[in-house]
C-alpha cells in the first residue's frame, strides 16, 4: 500500500543543511495500523508529510495507493490527496464553519453535489458519535469532540489511507483512549490503512500492528509491535518500551525494594503474548513450595496480545527457590534476578 524507498529530505537553511529524514525505507501493508514513534525533532512530522506530498523528498521515491506521490504534481496530486486524508494534533478545523460544514469541506473540494454531501455528512456525524452537535461551532466543542470532527472530515471522501499527525497528543488520557478506539473501529470497519506518528508508546501499544522507531531522521528499528517490545535493540527503543512497562525504576527505587524485601530473591519477569495468560505464579507456589510476593506489576494489552513485567519476591528454602527459578527459565518467560548494584 505504501512504499518508501531510500527517502531523504534535506532542508537548506542559513546555518547549513538539516537532514530531517535520512535514507528511510518502509513498507506499509493495506489495512494495517502502522505506528512511527520518536521524540520531537526525530523527523516524524516530515516523514508523514512526505506521504501526501505536503513535503517532497530530496531523494528517493514515495509510493502510496499505486501513485508515485514523490513525483506527481498539480491536479493529479490533488486528486490523489482526496484518498490520503490526514488528521492533526491541533485538529485544524475551520472555526468559521459549523461541525457539519467542516465535515462537508472535503466533499466541496471533491465537487460532490449538495444533497449527496448532506447525506454523507449525516452518516459521518453518526459514525464518530457527534449526533446533535452538527450545528455547533468548533469553539463550542471539547478537544476530543474536535478530533472526532477531524476524523469525520478525514473520512468524507472514503480514503484508502489515513495519516494521523500526533492526533492524540493534545488530549487527556481518557479522551486519547476513546479516540484510539474510534480509529481502531474504523480501521476494522472500513479496512482503512492507518499511519500514525506519536511520541507516546501507549498509542503504539494500544492500536498498532507494526511500529517503526525514528531517531535523528533515521528508522532505527521496525517490526511487529510485540516483537519490538519483547526484544528492543536500539537504546531509544528500550527507552520507549520502559515508558509503558514502568520497568525503568531508578536504581534508587530498586535498591529500596531490595531493602524492603531483604530475604529471598527479587525476580523481574517479562511476559510477551499468550504467556501472560498462564497461571505461572500459582504453579510456582504449588509446585515448589515457595512464598511468592508481588512487588510491582504492569501488564499492557496490545492488539497482538498482552505484554508486561512483574517484579516478584521468591522466598523459602534455598533449594526450592533455585528450582523455582529454573522452572521460570524453561517456561520461556524472560527472567532476570535483580541483585544489589
Amino acid at each position, binding site marked *: 500500500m505504501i512504499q518508501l524507498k531510500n527517502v531523504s529530505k534535506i532542508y537548506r537553511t542559513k546555518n547549513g543543511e538539516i537532514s530531517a529524514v535520512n535514507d528511510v525505507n518502509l513498507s506499509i501493508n493495506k489495512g494495517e495500523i502502522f505506528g512511527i514513534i520518536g521524540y520531537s525533532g526525530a523527523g516524524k512530522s516530515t516523514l508523514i508529510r512526505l506521504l501526501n506530498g505536503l513535503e517532497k523528498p530530496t531523494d528517493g521515491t514515495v509510493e502510496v495507493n499505486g501513485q508515485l506521490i514523490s513525483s506527481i504534481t498539480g491536479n493529479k496530486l*490533488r486528486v490523489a490527496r482526496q484518498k490520503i486524508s490526514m488528521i*492533526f494534533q491541533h485538529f*485544524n478545523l475551520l472555526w468559521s464553519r459549523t461541525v457539519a460544514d467542516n465535515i462537508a469541506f472535503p466533499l466541496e*473540494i471533491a465537487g460532490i453535489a449538495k444533497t449527496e454531501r448532506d447525506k454523507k455528512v449525516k452518516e459521518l456525524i453518526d459514525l464518530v458519535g457527534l449526533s446533535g452537535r452538527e450545528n455547533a461551532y468548533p469553539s463550542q466543542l471539547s478537544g476530543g469532540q474536535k478530533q472526532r470532527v477531524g476524523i469525520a472530515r478525514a473520512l468524507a471522501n472514503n480514503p484508502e489511507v489515513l495519516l494521523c499527525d500526533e492526533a492524540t497528543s493534545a488530549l487527556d488520557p481518557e479522551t486519547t483512549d476513546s479516540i484510539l478506539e474510534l480509529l481502531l473501529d474504523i480501521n476494522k470497519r472500513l479496512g482503512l490503512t492507518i499511519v500514525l506518528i506519536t511520541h507516546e508508546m501507549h498509542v503504539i501499544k494500544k492500536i498498532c500492528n507494526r511500529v517503526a522507531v525514528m531517531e535523528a531522521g533515521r528508522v532505527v528499528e521496525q517490526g511487529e509491535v510485540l516483537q519490538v517490545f519483547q526484544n528492543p535493540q536500539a537504546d531509544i527503543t528500550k527507552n520507549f518500551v520502559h515508558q509503558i512497562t514502568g520497568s525503568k525504576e531508578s536504581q534508587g527505587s530498586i535498591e529500596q525494594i531490595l531493602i524492603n524485601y531483604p530475604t529471598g530473591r527479587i525476580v523481574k519477569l517479562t511476559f510477551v503474548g499468550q504467556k501472560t495468560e498462564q497461571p505461572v505464579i500459582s504453579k510456582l507456589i504449588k509446585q515448589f513450595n515457595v512464598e511468592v510476593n508481588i512487588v510491582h506489576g504492569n501488564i499492557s494489552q496490545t492488539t497482538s496480545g498482552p505484554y508486561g513485567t512483574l517484579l516478584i519476591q521468591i522466598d523459602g528454602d534455598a533449594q526450592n527457590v533455585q528450582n523455582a527459578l529454573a522452572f521460570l527459565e524453561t517456561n520461556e518467560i524472560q527472567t532476570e534476578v535483580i541483585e544489589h548494584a
Partner: protein
Amino acid sequence: MLNQLFPNVDWPDMWQATYDTIYMTAISTVATFIIGLAIGLLLFLTSPHQIWANKVANFITGSLVNIFRSIPFIVLIILLIPFTKFLLGTIRGVNAALPALIIGAAPFYARLVLIALREIDKGVIEAARSMGAKTSTIIWKVLIPESLPALFSGITVTAVMLVGYTAMAGVIGAGGLGNLAFIDGFQRSRDDVTLMATIVILIVVFVIQFIGDLITSKTDKR
C-alpha cells in the same frame, strides 16, 4: 432653536454636503475593500513559505504598497490631478475625489488584510492542502472566511480614515462636509457652520464604527 444656535447654517447645503461625504466614503470604501483585499492576498500568498512564494513579486507589491502609503494624502491628490483629469475629464466634484481616495486607502487596507491573513492558523491552510484543495478554494473557503472578522474591523478603520480623507479632498474642491466647513465656514468666518459640519462628520464616523463593530462580532465564531 437650531437656527438660533447655528444662524448661518444653510440646511439644504448641509444635507447636500452630508450626502456627498457619505457618497464618497461609501463608494471608496467598497472599492478599497475589493482592491485592498486583492493586493493583501497577493502580498500574503507571495510571502515566504506560502502557496505562491515569490521573492520578486512580493518585493514589488510590498514596495508599491509602501510608496503609496507613505505619500501624504493631500500631496497624493495633487499628484493625481493629471490622472483624474484623464479619467474623468475634470478635477472638481465628488466623483473626481474617488481615484485619490481609493489609491490612498487601498494600500493601507492591503496592509491590514496582510495582518489579518497572517493571523490564520497555518495548520488550517495545511489541512485544506492535505484535502486536495486548489489555491482558489483555499482563498475563497479558507483565507477569506477565516479572517473575516479582522477584514471587517480593518475596513471599518479604513472607512473612518476615508471620512477624514473626503474632508481633505473637499478643501480642494471635491464637495462634501470638509468643503463646506472650509469654504463656507472657515473662509467666511462662520464658526457655527464649521462646528455643525464637524458634528455631522462625528455622527457619520460613529455610525460607521457601530455598524463595523456589529458585523465584526456577528462574524466571529471563535
